[in-house]
C-alpha cells in the first residue's frame, strides 16, 4: 500500500480520543465552527459535499450530497424533518462504525451537526445496534459533553442553528439496518422495510422528510468542510473519492479495521495491511464487502476496492468488509452459514425472500451434509434469479441471491464435488482466533 494519510483512524488512535478536550485539541469542531461562523448557507454545504464526490459508506454507495439535496425546501414544506444515523452496522463482516463510535464519537457528532445544518434539520436520531453497548455509551457521552459545551441543543455556538441528537438502541435485527426498516423500528413498530416510493426524503420518520446516513459517511463530512471538496475528491478514484475503512477478518494474520484510499487493491490490503493469509496458506476465496457481496476467487484478488471495479468483477463494494477464506476452508460451508443468516434475518414480508432464503439455506445445508443432488446446483441459480434483482421491497433478498450466484459461478466444482462424494471433502474448519479489532491499523 502506498503511503497515505489515514485521517479517520488517526483521530481514533489518540490517547483519550473519545473525549471532547482531546478532540478539540486537534481541531475538532473546527468544521462546524467554520460552517456556522463563516456564513455558509445550507445549500453551500450541500454543494461542498456534492463536489467532494462522497458516496455513502453504508453499502449502497449513493452520492451523499445528492441524497441531501432531495430534502424538500423548508420554505415550501414546513414539516418537521429528521436525520436518522444508521449505526446498526449489521452486515456480517462489518465492524468499522464500531471503531469510529468507540474511538471518535465526537467526529460523528460533528458530522451529524453539519449534516443537520445543511438539511435544516433540528432533530437527529442515532440508531445503534443493540449489541454495541460501548459504542452506544461513547456516543451518548459525547453528545452530553458537546451539549455542555454548547455544541448540541439550542443556538449552537451562539448561532441561530439548533439541533438535538437522540440515541436509540436496536434489538439486534439485521433488517433494521435497511433504511426504511430502521425508521419503522425507530417509530416503535415491527422492523420491516417500507415499499419505495415514497422515499424517505418525502415520507420518512413519522411520515416527515428524513435522510438516513451511515456513521462513516458522516464522519467524512467535517474533513470535507474543513479541507475542501477538492482535497477529498483527489483521494481515491474519480468516481469513488476519499478514504474508506476496510474491516478485514477471517483467515488473515492481522484482522482489523484499516483505512485506505478507495481504489486500493484487495491484494495490497490483504498482504500489506492484514499480513496475508494466515499460517502461510494459500488464498481460496474472499468476500469484498460484507456477506451480501458474495465470494470472489483468489484469482480476482487484484481487484481494486472501489464501487466500479467491484461492480465490473460481478460484486459490490458494500461496506468494504473483507472476509478471507484460506485453502482449507469449504466455501459451501461458508455459504451455508451466510444462507442461514439471511434465512434467520428475512423479515418475511415478501414471498420470494421469506421462502427463498429458507429454501437456499435448506439446499446449502443438504449439500454440505452430503445430501445434495446434481440438480440442486442449477436450482440454486434458478431460485436466486427468482429472488433478485429488484424483485422485493428491500435488498435482503438480493443479499442472499448474490452470494448464491457467486458460489455457483466461481466454485461450481466444489459444489459438484460435494454432490459426487456425498460429503464435505474438507475437514471441519479451524476456529478463527478472537482478536480485538480496535485500532488495529498498522
Amino acid at each position, binding site marked *: 500500500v502506498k503511503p497515505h494519510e489515514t485521517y479517520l483512524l488517526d483521530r481514533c488512535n489518540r490517547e483519550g480520543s473519545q473525549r471532547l478536550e482531546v478532540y478539540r485539541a486537534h481541531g475538532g469542531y473546527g468544521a462546524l465552527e467554520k460552517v456556522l461562523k463563516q456564513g455558509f448557507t445550507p445549500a453551500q454545504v450541500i454543494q461542498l459535499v456534492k463536489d467532494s464526490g462522497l458516496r455513502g459508506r453504508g453499502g449502497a454507495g449513493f452520492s451523499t450530497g445528492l441524497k441531501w439535496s432531495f430534502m424538500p425546501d423548508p420554505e415550501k414544506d414546513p414539516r418537521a424533518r429528521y436525520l436518522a444515523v444508521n449505526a446498526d452496522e449489521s452486515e456480517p463482516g462489518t465492524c468499522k462504525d464500531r471503531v469510529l463510535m468507540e474511538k471518535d464519537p465526537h467526529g460523528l457528532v460533528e458530522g451529524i451537526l453539519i449534516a443537520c445544518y445543511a438539511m435544516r434539520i433540528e432533530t437527529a436520531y442515532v440508531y445503534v445496534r443493540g449489541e454495541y453497548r460501548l459504542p452506544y455509551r461513547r456516543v451518548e457521552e459525547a453528545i452530553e459533553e458537546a451539549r455542555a459545551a454548547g455544541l448540541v441543543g439550542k443556538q449552537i455556538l451562539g448561532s441561530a442553528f439548533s439541533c438535538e441528537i437522540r440515541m436509540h438502541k436496536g434489538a439486534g435485527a439485521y433488517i433494521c439496518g435497511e433504511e426504511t426498516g430502521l425508521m419503522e423500528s425507530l417509530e416503535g413498530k415491527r422492523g420491516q422495510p417500507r415499499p419505495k416510493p415514497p422515499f424517505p426524503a418525502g415520507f420518512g420518520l413519522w411520515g416527515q422528510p428524513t435522510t438516513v446516513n451511515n456513521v462513516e459517511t458522516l464522519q467524512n463530512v467535517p474533513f470535507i468542510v474543513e479541507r475542501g471538496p477538492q482535497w477529498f475528491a483527489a483521494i481515491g478514484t474519480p468516481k469513488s473519492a476519499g478514504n474508506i475503512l476496510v474491516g478485514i477478518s477471517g483467515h488473515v494474520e492481522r484482522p482489523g479495521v484499516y483505512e485506505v484510499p478507495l481504489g486500493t487493491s484487495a491484494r495490497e490490503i490483504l498482504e500489506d495491511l492484514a499480513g496475508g493469509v494466515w499460517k502461510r496458506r494459500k488464498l481460496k476465496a474472499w468476500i469484498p464487502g460484507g456477506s451480501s457481496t458474495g465470494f470472489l476467487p483468489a484469482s480476482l484478488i487484484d481487484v481494486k476496492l472501489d464501487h466500479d471495479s467491484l461492480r465490473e468483477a460481478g460484486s459490490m463494494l458494500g461496506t468494504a468488509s473483507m472476509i478471507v477464506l484460506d485453502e482449507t476452508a469449504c466455501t459451501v460451508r461458508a455459504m451455508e452459514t451466510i444462507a442461514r443468516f439471511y434465512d434467520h434475518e428475512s*423479515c*418475511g414480508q415478501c*414471498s420470494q425472500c421469506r*421462502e427463498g*432464503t429458507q429454501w437456499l439455506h435448506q439446499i446449502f445445508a443438504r449439500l454440505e451434509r452430503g445430501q445434495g443432488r446434481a440438480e440442486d446446483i442449477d436450482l440454486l441459480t434458478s431460485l436466486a*434469479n*427468482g*429472488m433478485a434483482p429488484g*424483485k422485493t421491497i428491500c435488498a435482503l433478498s438480493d443479499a442472499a441471491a448474490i452470494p448464491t450466484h457467486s458460489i455457483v459461478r466461481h466454485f461450481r466444482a466444489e459444489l459438484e464435488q460435494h454432490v459426487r462424494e456425498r460429503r464435505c471433502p474438507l475437514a471441519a474448519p479451524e476456529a478463527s482466533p478472537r482478536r480485538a479489532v480496535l485500532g488495529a491499523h498498522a
Partner: protein
Amino acid sequence: MTRITIDGRAVEADPKKPLIHACHQHAAHVPMYCYHPGLTPVGSCRICQVEVKQGEMPARVVVACRTPVAEGMVVDTEAPKAHEARRQCLEFLLKNHPLDCPICDKAGECDLQDYAFLENQGQGRSVEPRRKLEKRKSLGEVIVLDEERCILCSRCVRFFEEVTKKPQLTVAGMGARSVIATFADRPLEGNYQGNIADVCPVGALTLKKFRFQARVWNLKKTPSTCGECSRGCAITVEVLRKGEVKRLRPRYEPAVNQWWMCDHGRFSFERFNAEDRLQGAVAYGPRGAEAIDVEQALDAAAGLLRVHGPPAVYVSPWLTVEEGERARALAERVGAPPRFVAPPPSPLKDDLLHTGDPCPNRRGLVELGFSAVSAAEALEGLRSAACALLIGERIVELVGEDALRSLPAALRLVVLDTTVPAASASSLSIGVPNAVERTGTWVNVDGHRGLLGAARPAPSGVAPLVRTLEGLERALAAAEVAR
C-alpha cells in the same frame, strides 16, 4: 382520468387507484394476494408483477398494486420477464404450502389454487420438508386459523387496522417463521370477524360455521340484501343442493357496505334453515289444527274479516316495498291504519355498518305511509280488536308468540308468516316465503334500494306474499258481493 395502454389497448384509468385496479377494470388478469381494493396496498406478496414502460425509460417489472398510473404508461401484463417473475413468486408461495386442497374449505375459490392451475404449476421443485405449524388454531368464536396454509399477505391484519380501526391481529415472528397471531393469544372480538375469512386469499382463515359444510362449487350463489338491520348490506346468499343456506357473504356495493358485512348479519342464515316452515295453510278449529287448502284459507280469512271486522292490521318490517304496497291497499280496503311492528333498537349499533335499527325496510314502509309501533303497542291494539291481520315474515316472533296466546280467546287472528304458530295463537295461518325465497326491494336507512334475490324456491304450497295478499283482496271483494 389518465390515459394508459394495457396489453395493447388504450384505456382510461383512475389516477387515484393503483395500476392493478386499472388492469382488473380492463380485463387484464393480474393475480393478487396482499392487494385488496378495500385495504392499503403494501406490495409484499409480489405476485402482481407486470412490465411497465414510461417515456424513454427502459421497461421495468413492477408490482402493479404499488405503482401509480401515469399518463402514457404502457403496461404489458404478459411480458416474458413479468410472467416469469410471477411464476417464480408463485413457486416460492407454494414451497411451504401444505397443498391440502382436498380437505380445504377454500378450495374452488382459492386465489392461490386458481393461479397455480392457471400457470399449470403442478410440480414443485422443492424436496425440503414443508413447514409444520398449527393446523387448527382457534381465534375466537368465529374464526379458525390454519398457519400452514397462510401466505402472510397481511390482509386480515390490515382489515382490523383499517376497517374496524381496532387492530387485533399481527404478524408475529420473522421470515419463514412468521405467523398470524393475536396479542397474547386472546380471542378475536367484535362484530366483524367473519370478514377476515372473506379477505383471506387462501384457506388460512375459515369460518367455524362453514368448516367442512360444503364444497364451494356446489353452492348456488344469488345476489341479495341482508335483512338484519336497516343498512341492508349487499350480500350473496349461498345455497347447497337441497336448499340449505350455507353462507351469506358480503357483495361489493360502494354505496352501502363496500366489501364488508357484520357477523350478526353473516350468521343470520341459520334461521332460514329452520325446519318448522308453514306449508300451505292451517286453520285452528275446535278439533285443533287442520291443514287446509290456501284458496279455502283465503275465503275463510275473508269471511272472518267480514264478520268480525274491521280488523287491526300489523305488518312486518321485513316486508318489501312491493309487498308493502299490497298490504297498504289491503289495509285501506278493510279500513285499518297501515302499521308495522318495529323491534327495539339493537345494541349492536356501531360506526361501521350496523345501524342499530333491526328493520331492513323501515324507510320503504314509512315512505308508503306505514307508521311504526312497538310490540307492546301492537298487543294493546290486538287486545281491543275483534279480529286482526298479521302480515309478513317474522311477525309472530316480533309480537311474541306467548303474548299472542295470552290474547282474548274471542280475537280472530289471521297470520301470514313463515312458521306455524302454536295452537290458539291464531285462528288461521297462511305460509309466506322468507327473505331468501322472494324477490323485492328494501329501502335502506340512506334511501338505497337493495334488491332481494330468490336463492331457492319457497316450500311447496307457499305463494309469494304479494299473490297471497291479492288473493285475500279478491276473496274480500267476493265476500262483499255475496253479502
